[in-house]
Structure formats: structure tokens, C-alpha cells
């Protein structure tokens, strides 16, 4: 039972990372109908920027917050410069552009920082917490807190601020949004900025566990896809819940199903994607989008 609880908490910690990245994917998907395959690589790049700041001697949280700022600006710039020109192209073309972006981010990171793995610090204490016989990693608990804090902020932003309202409106109904005077293009760019921020949080939280290298987010992104598919690509809340579920299931299956162990854990995510697509293609909380053709 102790092991079970430990594995659940540790699953929630990684699940929070998947949730952040899945939320980023869903935000962009909702606003533009595009799945941004470069989301994970953008996060990896942001994590390297944070690493450089820390390496230059900045305190962790200063580096963390500066990175979030840079990630935001970077996301906005990428939307304006790379995505905007192909805005009206067929979806497949835009997807190809995001795939190109993935390769570019990855190569540039390798070029600047090399492919050698780098240790990345955790801002949380090293000593684990003990509750009776159960041991929780401090980084796990910290990760969960950071994720929940980010989710709370973003919820408050979208729910209670005029800008958040305008961004929701622009995502759901761009034509009507223009008619009330919203600059829809800029709302989409802001969406990309915020998505990049979530990604950066995910990257900086997962890097101490996986160690930093240009392929840091490859696996995480697959899990994030699984999370978004499970929760529904049209439901931000669903994607977050999906992230936590995927994290916990991944951990429990790895622990209790012996032939899967750590080697086959990855297949679990892919299996989940396939099962969801077969059984309930819209995900747990997604809605079918009806389009007039």
C-alpha cells in the first residue's frame, strides 16, 4: 500500500508535467485547429535558456521567471513570423511547418549547447519527506505545487480578466470576435506566448529528473499527446486531468505489470492514444466540433 501511494504521488508529479504541455497543445489547437508538434522542442529550448542563466550565476527563481518571460515573447514571435504567413494554408501545411520548427529547435539547441547531457538543478530540497513509512521525493511534491499554481493562475486569467475573455472569444468564434473589435491575430499570438510559457514550466520541472539534452521533451510530448487525446483536444480542463491520469497510469503500470517495467512504459501512452481514438475519439471531456462545409 505504501508503495502504491508513493507511485501515485510520483505519477501525479510527472502527470503535472504532461498536463502543462498538454494544456499548451490544447490551447493552440482550440484557437487555430493546429496541433503544434514543436511545443515540446520549444519547451526544451526554454529550459536551455534557463540553464544558461543559472550557469551565469543567476539565482534559480530569477532564472525561472526570466525564462518564462523569454518563452512568452518567443512564442508570440514564432506565431507572428512563422505561423502567421501560412495562417490560411491547409491544415496539413501548417502541421508541416510546426514539424519543421521541431527539427529547427532541436538542431539549434544541439548546435549551441551540444548533445551532451547536462545536470539541471531542482529548486526543491534534496531530502525526501516522510509520512510514516511513505517517502515522497521533495522534487515530486514541489513539481505538483508549481503545476497547480500555474493552472490556477491561468484559470483565473481566462475566467476573470477582459483579455482572457477576449482570447476565449477569439478561439471559439473568430468572425464574431472581429465584429466586436477584437484583434484576433494578436489573440492567437498571445495564445502561442502563453502556451510557450506552460511548455517552459514543464521543461524546467522535468529537466532535473531526466537531465537536460536536446531530446529532453521527445518522450514527454508523446505523453502530452496521450493526455490531450484522453481528456479531449477541445477541453483544457480535460487535458489537464488527462495529464495527471496518464502520469499515474504510466507509473502504476510500470510498477505492477512486470513484463512492461520501465522499458515498455512508453508503449502505454501510445496504447492509450489508440484506445481513446477507437472508443471515444473526442476524449473524455471533448465535444464534437460541428462544421459547416
Amino acid at each position, binding site marked *: 500500500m505504501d508503495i502504491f501511494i508513493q507511485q501515485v504521488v510520483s505519477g501525479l508529479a510527472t502527470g503535472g508535467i504532461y498536463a502543462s504541455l498538454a494544456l499548451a497543445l490544447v490551447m493552440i489547437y482550440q484557437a487555430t485547429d493546429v496541433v503544434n508538434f514543436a511545443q515540446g522542442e520549444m519547451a526544451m529550448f526554454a529550459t536551455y535558456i534557463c540553464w544558461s542563466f543559472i550557469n551565469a550565476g543567476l539565482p534559480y527563481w530569477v532564472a525561472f521567471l526570466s525564462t518564462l518571460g523569454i518563452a512568452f515573447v518567443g512564442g508570440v514571435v514564432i506565431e507572428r513570423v512563422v505561423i502567421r504567413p501560412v495562417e490560411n494554408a491547409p491544415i496539413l501545411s501548417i502541421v508541416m511547418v510546426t514539424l519543421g520548427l521541431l527539427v529547427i529547435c532541436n538542431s539549434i539547441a544541439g548546435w549551441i549547447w551540444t548533445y551532451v547531457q547536462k545536470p539541471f538543478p531542482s529548486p526543491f530540497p534534496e531530502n525526501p519527506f516522510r509520512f510514516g513509512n511513505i517517502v515522497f521525493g521533495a522534487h515530486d511534491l514541489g513539481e505538483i505545487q508549481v503545476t497547480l499554481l500555474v493552472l490556477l493562475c491561468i484559470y483565473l486569467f481566462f475566467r476573470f480578466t*477582459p483579455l482572457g*475573455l*477576449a482570447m*476565449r*472569444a477569439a478561439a*471559439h*468564434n473568430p*468572425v*464574431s*470576435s*472581429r*465584429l*466586436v*473589435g*477584437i*484583434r*484576433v491575430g494578436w489573440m492567437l499570438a498571445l495564445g502561442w506566448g502563453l502556451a510557450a510559457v506552460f511548455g517552459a514550466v514543464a521543461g524546467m520541472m522535468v529537466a532535473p529528473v531526466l537531465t537536460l539534452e536536446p531530446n529532453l521533451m521527445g518522450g514527454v510530448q508523446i505523453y502530452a499527446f496521450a493526455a490531450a487525446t484522453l481528456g479531449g483536444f477541445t477541453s483544457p480542463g480535460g487535458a489537464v486531468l488527462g495529464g495527471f491520469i496518464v502520469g499515474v497510469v504510466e507509473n502504476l503500470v510500470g510498477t505492477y505489470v512486470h513484463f512492461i517495467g520501465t522499458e515498455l512504459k512508453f508503449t502505454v501512452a501510445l496504447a492509450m492514444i489508440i484506445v481513446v481514438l477507437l472508443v471515444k475519439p473526442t476524449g473524455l471531456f471533448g465535444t464534437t466540433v460541428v462544421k459547416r462545409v
Partner: protein
Amino acid sequence: MSALLDVQALEAFYGRTKALHGVSFSMAKGGITTILGANGAGKTTTLRAISRMVRTTGTIRFEGEALERKATEQVVQLGIAHAPEGRGTFVHLTVEENLRLGAWGRRERGGLKDDFDRVFGYFPVLRERRRQAAGTLSGGEQQMLSVARALMLRPRLLLLDEPSLGLAPLVVREIFRILKTINQTGVSILLVEQNAALALDLADHVFLLETGRVVMEGPSEVLRKDDAIRRAYLGY
């Protein structure tokens, strides 16, 4: 009276299809002008051209300012509110959020509460439903919301596209009564309407559009007596 809106030689295109073939008209400040015409005559396209939602040639001037090169959201900022065909409701959002968004494009930020009071005064049912998702409203309520949302801009010109569409006659009469009141507060209205009898009652000036051209215009009391109009649009 100076022209509030002046449209000259307006042509509009959907892809390669020409929908307007040189529409010219101008409307006076403070009035209610209606565009009559059959399906496909170009009524909706004319409104969409003013709101810059369709590619056009020709000139469109609002209080002397050229609109042709502006984006939709810039036109809105000049004080032109467009309640579009199909009502343009944000169905996922609540009534109150829809109304808040209506005020997004205006220059002065304050006084939101007064605007809420004013539109709830016109449409009390919206106050009761303010926390409800707009998609759950009835057709008539959604139409009221569409007009109310447009009013939140504090517009100088209100573009209304078929506000009577699909609504019960009683509801339509109620909405048109309120439109009259709104006009009396100084908001000019450009109304596109299939229901010619209603539109002629409300409007002071009429344009008749046929296959993308203005074929007749004049004060509504004159056009109401015109035989061709009577037979084609009023049905007696």
C-alpha cells in the same frame, strides 16, 4: 443633413464571384435606412462590405472617413456595430460575457455598468439570463442579445442583418419597437430585412436591391405605395 455613410460604385467578390455590381447609396445621420431585396440580391454582402468582411472595390465613407483599407476591428472602433446574419452569438460564453465583449471595441473604457443597465432596460429578459450560456437562449432572446451586444459599443451606426429571421411575430414586433427607441437616442440604423412590411414601417428611407444593384430608392412612405414594390415585396 450630412451623409453619415456614403457608398459609391461598390463591387464585392467572393473568390471570383461578383456579388455586388456597383452599389451606390448614402444614408443620413440619425435615420433608419432599410435595404430590401430578394434572397441573393446582395443585402448581407452590402453590410459585410461596410464591416470589411468581404473583398470589394469602390468607396465606402463613414463620416467622411474611408473604410476600404481598414480591418473589421478598426471599422468597429469607429462606432459601427454589426449584428450579423445568424446573430454571431458566442454560444459558449454567458450572456454577460457576450455583452462585455460587445464593449471591447469602443474607445472609452468606463461606464460599463450604465451600459449594462441600459441594455437590460431594453431587454429585461437578458438580465434574468445573464449568467446563462448564450447558446441556451431561445432564438428571440439570442436576437435580443445580438442587438444588445451591438449597443454595448455605444455605436453611431448599427448594422442589422435580418433581425426578424425565424422569430415569432410577437417577438419580432417587440424587437422592432425597441429598435425605434434605440434610434430615437441618436443611433442611426441600417437594416437589412426580408420582411418588407415591417421594414417599411420602421424605416424612413428605403433602397431596393436586385441582383447586386440598387434599382429603386426613396422615402419609405413613397415606396410603400409603389405598385411594383407592393406586388413583389408586400404581397397585395
